[in-house]
């Protein structure tokens, strides 16, 4: 079943159109990767779903299980934000409020939905522990600067998923992390998504991370979609020359061990 | 084509700032030629003409002593602005010398200078100025000294910050690499590239310094009676607030309009210098 359906989405800033009619869909519980080079419009497309950018003007259709979001009332959008669609950004340094405890920030999505403080706290701590933060109950009242980058990104993920959204949009959630931590965080995201039956739209410009993570891949360039395919098919038989170029740039085991993001089996499976 | 229109638009001075610039020019001109264009003798006491409202003979009315308010404002511009200019000149020189010293003189010198400026910051200028005024005796001269003493710490801090920034810039590093001597480096390379901020700050400070100086005159320790200084005029008019509003309102307007004009021009210069501020500020 299709969860998120984007049809002919155009996004402009002032006079300048930066996304020119994008079509994209994410099935319920599916993980879709949106890839493309820097400036291709991935983030703009992602932000258009929740319409968080007041400077952007949208046309076309974004629907969530049939509920149209383009042109929706503010109250309608608010009820979608957080509880049906969660969001994670690239930089865990700027994604957390420096003057609030991480616990307060994790509890917020529940608190604003009327969950009791005590229950919100318990759920927050449990989630944080599930996301691999050791000593979660003790660290719950710490401030963001007391955490490392990878740990902070787990906190950001906790904030995004605590209200149990059906879809998580993760905009390059690991780009700012160092390579080892990248793999850990992605694995974790994968596990949590599967556990909760949560769909993920993963944005990345790194095809290397896609293979082990996504079911489908959407390739974007210059504000347009150039190719959409299941992940195995895309790796085995890319149609668009741009995709072929991208694949050529994927790190290979024999080239650079530091870039080792996917397991041997995965690469072999993909390469057929 | 569209870009050239955009750049031309950006180069045009916004209307408000243009008006402010014109007013600043006018005020400065009045400071120079004011006494000659004054329609009446600003000091001629004429008790039969006291507290006349604005009219064809006295455009802005007369004060309690029958003196023409307009003529006094035109004449007084010189006192107020000259005092302001002297204060700013003195404090800028001190600021550049001491501020540079703090920036390049090493930790100990810097620490000492900064703690001294902390003291200056702890007491509002008008209060510190009162201290100097009472120690030196009243008069516009001691008002100038007094305000200067309380104003220089601000410039020291400003210059210290910008000189430090310039010292870290690339061209200074390459000058060092070329073996330019320290003195020469600071005098010929660092300072000329640091001081453009002064245009901005001095323009912005005209308003603030003028307000302190006229405040001192208002209290009675700056320009003395019967001087046509703007603050002193307001003080003199304060006693008959109810019988002759014009003697109170117009000198104050002169101060306020001048202060607004210089503030606007200062802000405009600041944005010119650093266009990114336009959004932020």
């Amino acid at each position, binding site marked *: 079943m299709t969860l998120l359906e984007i049809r002919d989405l155009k996004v402009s800033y002032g006079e300048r159109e930066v996304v020119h009619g994008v079509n994209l869909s994410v099935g319920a519980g599916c993980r879709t990767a949106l890839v493309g080079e820097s400036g291709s419009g991935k983030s703009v497309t992602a932000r258009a779903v*929740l319409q*968080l950018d007041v400077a952007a003007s949208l046309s076309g259709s974004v629907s969530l299980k049939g509920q149209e979001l383009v042109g929706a009332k503010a109250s309608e959008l*608010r009820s*979608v934000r*957080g*509880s049906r*669609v*969660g*969001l994670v*950004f690239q*930089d865990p340094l*700027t*994604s957390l*409020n420096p*003057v*609030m405890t991480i616990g307060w920030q994790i509890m*917020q*999505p529940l608190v*604003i939905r009327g969950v009791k403080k005590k229950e919100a706290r318990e759920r927050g701590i449990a989630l944080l522990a599930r996301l691999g933060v050791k000593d979660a109950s003790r660290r719950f009242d710490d401030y963001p*600067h*007391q955490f490392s980058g990878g740990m902070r990104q787990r906190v950001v993920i906790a904030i*995004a998923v605590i*209200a149990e959204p059906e879809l998580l949009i993760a905009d390059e959630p690991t780009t700012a992390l160092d390579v080892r931590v990248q793999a850990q965080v992605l694995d974790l995201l994968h596990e949590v998504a599967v556990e909760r039956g949560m769909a993920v739209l993963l944005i990345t410009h790194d095809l290397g991370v896609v293979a082990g993570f996504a079911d489908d891949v959407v390739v974007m360039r210059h504000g347009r979609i150039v190719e959409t395919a299941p992940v195995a098919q895309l790796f085995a038989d890319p149609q668009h020359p741009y995709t072929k170029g991208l694949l050529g740039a994927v790190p290979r085991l024999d080239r650079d061990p530091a870039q080792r993001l996917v397991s041997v089996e995965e690469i072999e499976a993909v390469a057929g | 084509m569209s870009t050239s229109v955009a750049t031309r638009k950006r180069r045009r001075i916004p209307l408000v700032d243009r008006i402010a610039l014109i007013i600043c020019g006018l005020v400065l001109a009045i400071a120079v030629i004011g006494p000659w264009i004054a329609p009446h003798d600003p000091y001629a006491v004429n008790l039969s003409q006291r507290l006349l409202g604005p009219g064809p003979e006295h455009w802005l009315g007369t004060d309690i002593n029958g003196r023409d308010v307009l003529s006094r404002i035109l004449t007084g511009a010189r006192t107020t602005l000259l005092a302001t200019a002297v204060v700013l000149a003195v404090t800028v020189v001190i600021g550049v010398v001491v501020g540079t010293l703090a920036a390049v003189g090493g930790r100990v010198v810097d620490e000492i200078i900064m*703690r*001294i400026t*902390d*003291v200056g*910051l*702890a*007491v*509002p*200028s*008008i*209060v*510190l100025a*009162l*201290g*100097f005024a*009472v*120690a*030196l005796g009243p008069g516009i001269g001691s008002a100038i000294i007094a305000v200067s003493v309380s104003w220089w710490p601000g410039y020291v*801090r*400003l210059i210290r*910050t910008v000189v430090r920034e310039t010292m870290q810039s690339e061209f200074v590093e390459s000058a060092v690499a070329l073996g330019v001597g320290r003195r020469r480096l600071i005098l010929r390379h660092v300072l000329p590239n640091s001081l453009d901020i002064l245009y901005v700050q001095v323009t912005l400070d005209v*308003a603030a310094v003028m*307000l302190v100086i006229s*405040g001192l005159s208002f*209290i*009675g*320790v700056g320009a003395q009676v019967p001087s046509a200084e703007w603050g002193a005029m*307001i003080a003199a008019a304060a006693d008959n*607030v*109810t019988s002759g509003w014009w003697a*109170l*309102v117009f000198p*104050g307007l002169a*101060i*306020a309009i001048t*202060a607004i004009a210089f*503030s606007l021009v200062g802000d405009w210069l600041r944005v010119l210098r650093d266009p990114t501020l336009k959004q932020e500020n």
Partner: protein
Amino acid sequence: MNVARYVARRLLLSGVVFFGLVVLAFVLVTVLPGDPARAAAGRNATAAQVAEARERLGLDDPVLVQFWHYLTNVLQGDLGNSVFTHRAVLADIADVLPSSLELVAAAMLINIVIGVPLGVLAAYRRGRTLDVMARIVALLGATMPVFWLGLLLQLVLSSRLGLFPLYGQLGFGERVPDITGVITIDALLSGDPALFSSALAHLILPALTLAASFIAVIARTVRSSMITSLDADYVTLARATGAGELRVVVRHALRNALVPMSTILGMQLGWMLGVTVLVESTFSRQGIGAYMVDAVLQNDLYAVIGSILVIGVVFIVTNLVVDLVQLWINPRLRDGLAPARPAAPEAVR
């Protein structure tokens, strides 16, 4: 321990600035032209009286000895005597200070109640009409001569429209029991509502006058800090969790503005006490400002310098308190990660 080091350093700095302040005061009373012996003896003193004062004040001692005496006196609360009231300057000031603190507190309240929302709204509606209007209000507040504004308010609101009493702190014939020295509080304690409202009515115009020039700066500070946090990712993400705009602005963004805001407000409190010299006399209020103006006009050197010391000390103490409050509102400070004090804004004066 970072917190202990921070507190120690703040205390030390405050001490250093206080010492500098005393040096400054000493320079003003002793070193500058003008004869402190004559100042202490009074204007009409005979030569013998002046000589006696010179002897008493130790003015023939070496400067360092004189300074030592001055410093120890100041530390014991002896700021010299007023030649007019013939009392200790500190006792004079203690009598009038509560009234000034009342005025400053009221002005600070107005400053915060107008300045902070103005800054928040201007940031929220950046570049829109509201922002422009906020800028105009700020510009007017910062450029109007304080003393002139007070007179104008008297002229229009009191004299013409009769909305507020012209001057004084209470109406003709009204008295309050002297309990705290703060008239509004004493009026409240007296249990007479009419008396209290009269005291409030007398307080409003001077407080508004005093606040006017400060609103611009706090609004500007809040605005620029709010712009930074409203643009930050964590605010966008807060919206993405479904938080309402009010909550986003107040709980997520404004909380960050508290750090620079409290720094500026702390400095403003001390400065406001100084700016009372331009307000209190106009409104015939008691207070350190009016006391200082009288002292200046009567050449009462010790009274003036004593007032400067008191105003400086209030500034130093409020800033120390703010520095300690920062520990609580800025968690990064506790771990030594933030600059101990944001660089003093150059343009705030």
